[in-house]
């Protein structure tokens, strides 16, 4: 964006006739500038590894079923049928679909190729686990069976059938990773480089990648060959990486940006005063992960005790945290986030529950601590210094400083903050070298709750959580195997209650993300993540 000095601006304003002509020209191209914290890294669906940037990838690809602002419509699929048990789904593709080049047709073979490539046992694609949901998917990846035995079956050019391990739902087919098409003749010659630059991407979605400077900017332009091109209003979407926080704020104020990710309350207020619109949605769970085995045998003794963990959770003042250090986090009183989908509406409305108070309850905390000490036959002096692991960011360190003080004031427990660089932190966490670990759990995928809960099953056991419980495993397995959505959600609720009663983690709150934008924009929407596909602009 070239900018004039104040002087030339004034000069330009004097010649009023000229700008009008220019404006009329510009109005034909609808474009928007959106700030984003992270680079998409890759547009190869098999390799997606930047959760907060997944929305960009979704805009360039098409999936079997598309969630168009809350209703499931066919994307690549014209129609579909499912078996009674919900395990087998047959899709009929739209006729005459092409990739963005307008020539190469999209066929059922392309869907199969994309899935086979994703699960290639020799490649080690980041998202390979997505294929585990298919019948024999995990076995194929482990080299235990042939591709023909995997639950994907191309019936003809336009018909494809999927068989799953557990019942599937419409929402599962909106994932680009497993249910989008790739052109083999285009992808194969590129090998690992597919999806790393504009000329190395061939997709079939509403937009195409026109320019992409790593960690700097991405320019998406409308795909005129998209089957639903008439619903797409924006001609250009310019994504500016790093335009967040105070930088993004200044850019909004200087008119270098139209959408900026929500910041602190103060930042949001400044933009609201300028006439900007704010919207928010829940993006992640903020929690203190618990190592049930403890960093040392000593701390494991205490952390392995349910009443001790309860004492910790009651000692934490979640409202105070939200009011001071984690202002964009709503204090939690249960596990499930308010935006988690239920059968028809929201899960939390359908299954009301309050697991713990949002304010600290020092008396109850003390009570649980005494119970724990009694059970263990220990005194308060025996409790070791608790290790608080976190990533080396200001926000994390501040949050832990607050929690450290709460544990000290409400329980008399000493703790030490242990910030580390990202990979070293992950390494510490994965080897169980921590007591409590401050972290988030991103929600940007359908069924985020399921993913969260699965982490505590014995099957997923690593040194990370140090937790294993047969009763929990049984509850979880029953939930996943539920044939209907109603049953699955009801079963999830049972798992949630067990989860909270036994304090498997200390949940702090639900992180709220969102954007501030200039007036006049509409058509964006969000459930698990932001979606700018149908964005529109009309000057007010």
């Amino acid at each position, binding site marked *: *964006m*070239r*900018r004039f*000095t*104040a002087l030339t*601006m004034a000069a330009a304003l004097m010649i009023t006739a000229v700008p009008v002509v220019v404006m009329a020209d510009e109005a034909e191209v609808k474009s928007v500038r959106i700030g984003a914290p992270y680079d998409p*890294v*890759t547009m*190869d669906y098999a*390799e997606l*590894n930047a959760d907060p940037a997944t929305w960009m990838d979704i805009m360039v690809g098409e999936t079997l079923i598309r969630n168009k602002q809350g209703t499931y419509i066919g994307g690549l699929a014209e129609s579909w049928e499912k078996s009674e048990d919900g395990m087998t789904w047959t899709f009929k593709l739209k006729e005459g679909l092409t990739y963005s080049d307008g020539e190469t047709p999209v066929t059922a073979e392309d869907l199969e190729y994309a899935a086979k490539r994703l699960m290639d*046992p*020799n*490649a*080690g*694609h*980041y998202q*390979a*686990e997505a294929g*585990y949901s298919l019948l024999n998917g995990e076995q194929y*990846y*482990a080299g235990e069976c042939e591709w023909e035995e995997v639950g994907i079956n191309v019936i003809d050019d336009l018909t494809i059938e999927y068989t799953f391990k557990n019942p599937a739902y419409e929402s599962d087919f909106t994932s680009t990773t497993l249910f989008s098409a790739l052109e083999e003749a285009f992808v194969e010659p590129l090998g*690992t*480089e*597919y*999806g*790393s*630059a504009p000329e*190395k991407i061939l997709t079939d979605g509403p937009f195409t990648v026109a320019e992409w*400077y*790593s*960690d*700097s*900017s991405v320019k998406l332009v409308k795909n005129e060959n998209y089957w639903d091109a008439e619903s797409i209003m924006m001609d250009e979407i310019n994504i*500016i*990486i*790093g*335009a967040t926080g*105070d*930088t993004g704020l*200044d*850019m909004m*104020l*200087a008119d*270098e940006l139209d959408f900026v990710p929500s910041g602190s309350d103060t930042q949001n207020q400044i933009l609201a005063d300028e006439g900007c619109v704010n919207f928010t949605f829940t993006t992640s769970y903020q929690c203190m992960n618990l190592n049930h085995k403890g960093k040392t045998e000593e701390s494991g003794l205490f952390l392995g005790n349910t009443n001790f963990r309860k004492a910790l959770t009651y000692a934490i003042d979640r409202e105070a945290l939200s009011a001071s250090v984690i202002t964009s986090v709503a204090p939690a009183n249960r596990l499930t986030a308010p935006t988690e989908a239920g059968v028809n509406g929201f899960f939390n409305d359908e299954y009301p529950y309050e697991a713990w108070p949002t304010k600290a309850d020092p008396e109850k905390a003390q009570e649980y601590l005494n119970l724990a000490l009694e059970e263990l036959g220990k005194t308060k002096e025996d409790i070791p210094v608790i290790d608080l692991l976190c990533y080396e960011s200001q926000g994390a360190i501040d949050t832990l400083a607050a929690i450290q003080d709460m544990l000290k004031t409400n329980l008399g427990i000493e703790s030490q903050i242990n910030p580390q*660089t*990202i*990979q*070293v932190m*992950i*390494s*510490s*966490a*994965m*080897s169980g070298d921590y007591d409590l670990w401050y972290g988030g759990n991103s929600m940007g995928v359908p069924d985020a709750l399921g*993913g969260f809960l699965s*982490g505590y099953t014995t099957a997923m056991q*690593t040194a*990370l959580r140090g937790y294993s419980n047969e009763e929990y495993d049984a509850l979880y397995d029953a939930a996943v195997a539920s044939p209907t959505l109603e049953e699955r959600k009801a079963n999830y609720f049972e798992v949630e209650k067990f989860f909270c009663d036994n304090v498997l983690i200390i949940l702090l709150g639900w992180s709220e993300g969102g954007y501030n934008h200039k007036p006049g924009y509409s058509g964006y929407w969000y459930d698990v993540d932001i979606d700018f596909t149908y964005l529109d602009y009309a000057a007010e």
Partner: protein
Amino acid sequence: MLKYISKKVLIALATVFVLATATFFLVKLIPGDPFLNDKIPVAVQDKQRAFYGLDKPLPQQYLTYMGNLLKGELGYSIKKTGRTVVDIIAEAFPVSAKLGLTSLVFAELIGLTFGILCAQFRGKFPDYFLMVLAVLGIALPSMVLGPILRLILGVKLRILPVTGWGDWDQMIMPAIVLGLGTIAGNTRSMRASMLAITTQDYIKTARAKGLPPIKVILKHQFKNSLVPIIPNLGVQIASVMMGSFVVESMFLIPGLGRYFVDSITNLDYPLIMGLTVFYGVFLVTMNLLVDVLYGLIDPRIRVK
């Protein structure tokens, strides 16, 4: 002469080789690896490691890497999926180099001038005034100074763009923020070094000869007082061209600076190695040039 130069080049290559080897093994000492992830099944992680050759024993990994390095191949970045290290450096380095050099040239000019002024007015107002400026310049972290400039010049006065890269006016603010430390440092060290020379006999002689003061300063004092500034000039040039993490992220400049931090915290081995070798070649070359420069500046110094 040819023998002399080829010897220097050989030594430089050996230095880079040692540097690459040391970095290779040091990085592997850091616990964890880039594929460790609590959300990805272990089976997938193992395949990823195998794909990048990280499942091989360390000596074998080292030999493979060095072999590729000799062929000029730096491999694929692990975190920037599908992009080669060469590609990343080729895209970002020109940006950082342009900004860094511009900023350095101005900072050196201003810093040296200030230093001379301070020395000339030793103990008087301009000396103290410039010292306070220098101290503020170095005590104000760029992390704060940048946003202040951005707010005043970009948002309130609207005379410069807030962020971005491409136009000359987008370079002004980052160049100022980047150069402030250099200005401050040079003001102070140039002052000290000028003062150390004012009492030398040859300066006294020059004055006694009746040369005008300005000529004495520029012709005799200036050149000789550069000696303490030059040793670190090589490092300064090399590092400033590699970009700055803070300044680049503050003004959204697509430079190399962030990769130096990100690659290490992410344990992106090929990228760490690529950047280190690239920087090493630069550093060693610059330092060799500096040694040559010494002799030119002060004939009494002969670096053998």
